[in-house]
């Protein structure tokens, strides 16, 4: 899987797309959301809306409220309003396919937003999930090139837990084979639950007699359990821990120093990039000419799609400022309990 990652696309895109945006006025961009139960989708929506409205286009949306059936009906009603592009956040990536067919039949362009559905005519825009595991492992190798690694994986029923682990293994393979690092504990965590992660970490520390130098936890919630277990042994801060999601508490731990990194998928970036791509498509652009588009065939059935995979941002002690500047967290929240002078962003 060859992936072209974008980092500063958002900034570059503003300049590049400005002229087309003016031309695009009057187009309609529709979004079929799967749910608004999680807080993040409101952030995504705000970002998309801002780009669309700034371009003088109109924004249209439906909320499937966590139901595949409602989403099918939603999409039909969107089609009847004749938008130029429909972004779909699929609730069920298989059940959505007949609806996508209807979008295609109506001559409307589609974007798979964040959740993949395997239709070759759609443009797939998401964060690079295998990349998150890779970034975690890279950040860890920077501080612990040698030593005993523990792996706290997510729920065994969630394919993401395995994707993340694959990403880590890609990076760590050489060091593991060369014996520089050893895998001392590796457990799945039921339901990605922090308290389960805490218990698993406690048992890991007991069985190895505290012989752990680094912990690769697959998300921030579990990292909080891992840090609590390490703290009980006086090891919090001494043993680096990874995480992802940019949880507010995790960013605070990064600033305090008990967590090494929180890999953050900024919904604002995702929404902005997707909205800009949607406007280009609405203007009749060929998907392959949009900046950052590459072929992706890493899905369940291996269908080749045009896709934009965004690189997530690793938040470490050195760049806490990024999350503060993006308005994701306040300085007070990020810096609570941080020793003066230890983190640049908190001074």
């Amino acid at each position, binding site marked *: 899987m060859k992936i072209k990652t974008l980092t500063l696309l958002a900034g570059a895109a503003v300049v590049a797309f400005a002229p087309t945006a003016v031309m695009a006025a009057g187009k309609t961009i529709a979004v079929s959301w799967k749910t608004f139960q999680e807080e993040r989708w409101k952030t995504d929506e705000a970002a998309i809306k801002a780009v669309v409205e700034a371009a003088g286009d109109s924004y249209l949306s439906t909320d499937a409220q966590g139901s595949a059936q409602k989403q099918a009906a939603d999409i039909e009603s969107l089609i009847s309003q004749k938008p130029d592009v429909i972004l779909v956040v699929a609730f069920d990536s298989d059940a959505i396919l007949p609806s996508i067919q209807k979008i295609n039949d109506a001559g409307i362009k589609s974007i798979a937003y964040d959740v993949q559905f395997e239709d070759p005519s759609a443009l797939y825009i998401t964060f690079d999930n295998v990349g998150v595991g890779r970034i975690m492992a890279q950040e860890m190798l920077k501080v612990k090139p040698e030593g005993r690694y523990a792996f706290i994986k997510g729920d065994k029923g969630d394919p993401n837990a395995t994707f993340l682990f694959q990403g880590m293994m890609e990076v760590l393979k050489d060091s593991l084979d060369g014996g520089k690092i050893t895998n001392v504990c590796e457990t*799945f965590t039921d339901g990605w639950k922090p*308290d389960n992660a805490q218990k698993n970490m406690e048992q*890991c520390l007991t*069985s190895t007699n505290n012989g752990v130098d680094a912990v690769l936890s697959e998300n921030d919630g579990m990292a*909080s359990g891992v840090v609590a277990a390490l703290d009980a042994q006086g*090891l919090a801060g001494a043993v680096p821990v990874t995480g992802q999601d940019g949880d507010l508490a995790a960013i605070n731990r990064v600033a305090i120093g008990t967590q090494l990194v929180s890999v953050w998928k900024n919904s604002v970036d995702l929404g902005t990039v997707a909205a800009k791509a949607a406007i280009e498509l609405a203007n009749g652009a060929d998907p392959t000419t949009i900046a950052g588009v590459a072929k992706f065939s890493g899905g369940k059935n291996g269908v080749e799609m045009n896709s934009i995979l965004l690189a997530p941002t690793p938040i470490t002690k050195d760049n806490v400022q990024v999350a503060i500047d993006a308005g994701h967290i306040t300085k007070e929240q990020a810096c609570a*309990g941080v020793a003066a002078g230890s983190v640049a962003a908190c001074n």
Partner: protein
Amino acid sequence: MAMQTSAGGPASANENAVQRFVRAAEIDTRMVGMLVAMLVIWVGFDIISSVLRPGGSGVFGGSFLTSRNLWILLVQTSTIAVMTTGMVLVIVLRQIDLSVGSMLSVVAVATGVLQVFHLGPMLGVGHPVIWIIAVAFALLVGAAIGFFNGVLIAYGQIPSFIVTLGGLIAYSGAAFLIASGVTVAPMDKAFKIIGGNGPLASIGPFWSWVLGAVGCVLIVVATIAGRRRRVRFHFTPKPVWAEFLTAFIACAAVLGTTAIVNSYLWPQRVAERYALENSIPIPPGIEDRNGLAICMAGDKVVNCVDGLSFQTGYPIPVLITLAVGLAMTFIARRTRFGRYVFATGGNPEAAELAGVNTKWLTVKVFTLMGVLVGISSVIASARLDAATTALGTLNELYVIAAAVIGGTSLAGGVGTIFGAIVGALLMQSLQSGMALLNVDSAYTNIVVGAVLVIAVYVDQVYRRRVK
């Protein structure tokens, strides 16, 4: 009242020596069976772990029967154990509470939001009254939700299964809304102690021994008082040797546990930090990576065998569990409220005709359950040092399973607090042991589920035999 499950009964002609002994000493064979099963599990885990990772300091060379693992095991059990004592009364009353997990989540998140987002900024982070307000608030919210459940069940006459099933779904939604799904952390420093982490979260060797000794004295006093009471009501007292034996075993168990929690030493880095902060001199010594004490080798602090070390003693959450267990046992066996619960569970119609206000009793039992959930939520969030919606998920199943494994009958009227706590310990032993062996959690779930069913099956067979 059917709360005694001991085998004491009329002598029959054709019993052998063992049966005679068991009957005379009034040994609860069911409880003994459960304790033996637990011992087998513990020894098994220690032996298997010694094969997988040799060189452990456990009794059989593994890492399960070490003071460290047993200490952590007790702490890990506390959340479920506290709640299961209340679940015993709920089930004895022929009701069920499926909402305890979600209640724990909502109480933990609400308490977390209160102390981190409101009390912290208002009173200043680390203010000494924050933890008191937070704990009181948790108990109050727990009681309020439990009361609400109880009123719906008793006066709304909606089956408890439905009310609490609704609660299971609704309260987790409420927990999500309170903090809009974010993890609330870190907890107040003093509040955190309740979770058992850190040097101040245990009472140390001296007070642990004092507690152990007091426990022993109480056992002796209770034995004598119990004997007197039997004589007063013209019951046949146990033979003197049997009284001595049970008191001796109970006392040995208390002192043994005390010795185990005391022999768990502070983790080296915790000891090091404490020594540096309090200017306690660290003696010089030779580095030994497996040593549990700390020494100075040159200007570096290292692990060593003979050096500075601190004994841990009983951790706060375990003390809370013990206190709750004792209080609940007292409530169940010695108060009118407790007797009414067992009487109503045994035969609701008869109890009502005898003048028990069963509706109000139901409300009280569910309110008590809520308070216990409040206590558990404090322990759970203090231990994790964070409050999240995920905290408490599926706990209702473990709490009910612990009560049932511990001998509480879903038909109502029968159950003991002590048994339920042992049930909780048994389940946690399985989970921790398999995590220690790095077993995939899928297998752990299969084993825990199977143990639940087998325990109830064995119980049924046993009860039929006794009859």
